[in-house]
């Protein structure tokens, strides 16, 4: 017997009571074991979609299936398969992290002894064990975010949904969070991630959907999406710079300051010839790096393109 997809979203629509059409009939599939990025600008419909998957939002029409279980028709069974790390803090700040985790497991019907063992395991893995018996309100912002991940793991979900879990978290904690989630994913848990840190999505996720104005504007593998980027921009640190920048065919040079240049060129362009021509013009390059992360560039393009051509989005949604 073949394993059903981790998630099938089928023509899902949501219109709020104030008339806002947050989802305009989106469909997508996430395979088991995937690390899937769900990206989009603010107000695109990501949180509405996650709300419907976790049953916090009632869909207007359409359905979603988690490992073949309908969220609409078999809500309880579907919820057993999902772990949710929401965007906003949503635990009682006067309770202790250990109790928050054990209680959450209890709500999933997990006996107290097993719940206590799991709480210890995940709080330790997320480096919160020393705070386990302090009031949650005394934790730092990063700790509170990690607590929500630990809590979401209490039912050992097959599908873990992370809605901007690293918002406002410093880089060190963010990295440790990703190490944890990557390990969970490697162990077989399917992960869906929404984030505004696109470098995170680029380095972690294998497949991606970009949502804007309630429609999916792109849904493909990360590799294939990045391959469509035909232009790259490099930042070059240079020792000396002439008053007038040389003209190099196929390359657009821009001055950032007296010791920094930007070079925009086709991905197929030969870097050796760029260096040779810069050198011939008395510009010595000491170091170079990509100007922006590639996914960010694609993301901006796709979202802006979708806004310029609204008809395209509607067609895709149909």
């Amino acid at each position, binding site marked *: 017997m073949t394993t059903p997809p981790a998630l099938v979203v089928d023509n899902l629509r949501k219109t709020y009571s104030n008339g806002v059409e947050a989802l305009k009939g989106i469909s997508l599939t996430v395979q088991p074991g995937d690390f899937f990025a769900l990206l989009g600008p603010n107000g695109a419909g990501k949180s509405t979609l996650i709300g419907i998957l976790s049953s*916090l939002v009632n869909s207007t029409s359409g359905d979603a299936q988690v490992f073949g279980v309908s969220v609409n028709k078999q809500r309880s069974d579907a919820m057993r398969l999902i772990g949710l790390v929401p965007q906003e803090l949503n*635990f*009682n700040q*006067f309770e202790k992290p250990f109790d928050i985790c054990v209680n959450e497991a*209890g*709500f*999933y*019907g997990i*006996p107290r002894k097993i719940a206590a063992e799991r709480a210890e395991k995940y709080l330790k893995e997320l480096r919160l064990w020393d705070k386990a018996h302090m009031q949650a309100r005394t934790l730092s912002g990063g700790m509170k975010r990690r607590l929500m991940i630990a809590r979401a793991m209490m039912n050992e979900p097959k599908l873990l949904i992370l809605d901007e879990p690293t918002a406002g978290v410093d880089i060190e904690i963010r990295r440790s969070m990703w190490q944890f989630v990557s390990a969970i994913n490697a162990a077989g848990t399917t992960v869906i991630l929404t984030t505004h840190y696109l470098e995170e999505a680029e380095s972690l996720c294998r497949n991606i959907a970009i949502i804007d104005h309630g429609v999916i504007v792109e849904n493909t593998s990360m590799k294939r999406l990045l391959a469509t980027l035909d232009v790259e921009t490099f930042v070059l640190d240079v020792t000396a710079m002439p008053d007038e920048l040389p003209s190099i065919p196929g390359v657009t040079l821009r001055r950032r300051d007296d010791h920094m240049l930007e070079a925009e060129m086709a991905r197929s362009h030969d870097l050796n010839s760029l260096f040779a021509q810069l050198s011939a013009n008395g510009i010595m390059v000491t170091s170079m790096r990509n100007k922006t992360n590639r996914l960010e560039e694609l993301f901006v393009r796709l979202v802006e393109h979708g806004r310029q051509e609204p008809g395209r989005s509607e067609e895709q949604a149909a």
Partner: protein
Amino acid sequence: MSNTAANLVALNTLVRREIARIMRIWTQTLIPPAITMTLYFVIFGKLIGSRIGTIQGGFSYMQYIVPGLVMMSVINNCYANISSSFFGAKFSRAVEEMLVSPMPNWVILLGYVTGAVARGMVVGVLVLVIALFFTSLHVVHPLITFLSVLLGATIFSLAGFVNAVYAKKFDDIALVPTFILTPLTYLGGVFYSVNMLGEPWQAISRINPILYMVNAFRFGVLGISDVHVGVAFIVMLGFVAGLTIVALQLLKRGVGLRS
């Protein structure tokens, strides 16, 4: 694990959490009603009551008001507990912990109601113990006493839950106790027998549900009542059934909880 077993674990978890909350803030949940009722006993029971003498069935005024005051503290505390706990969970979004879980709505409702009833019962016992410092009581019908206080507590727990579901701000959970619950309690025969009232006030009093709770409880403790105990139980059971249906419908539709 079967669904029934999982639901029992979930219910047990929710009740434990509610009781832990009551104990964590015991200075707000258990002590104030004890102090308030002590003052009632001193002022109404001792100072004023001693001048009233016997009131009905040969009982002193103090003995007469004890069942009503116990019931009043039970229902007030049930209502306050569930409305503040559930609205607090809504306000802090901690309610989402339950909403995203497989827990069915009836478990959520039963868990909160059980927690509130537990607080009401503890407060009721505390008030009863305090009353024994002022007067002597002999419970005539223990089963009726227990059932009437249980049903009264359940009714006001359910009502508090419905209030919390609709509430959008903390003020909303204070409105009903201030403008409805307190007047109904004071006019529900806690301090007097409705038989003392002339018409139409006696007839009007009989549409007050608290009258039936207070009198059923008074019948259990003292053996006297202004209303037929059977009718009182029918009224209380009707309220329990009606409010349970309303609360479950609100949860099913996700009113104030799911978008």
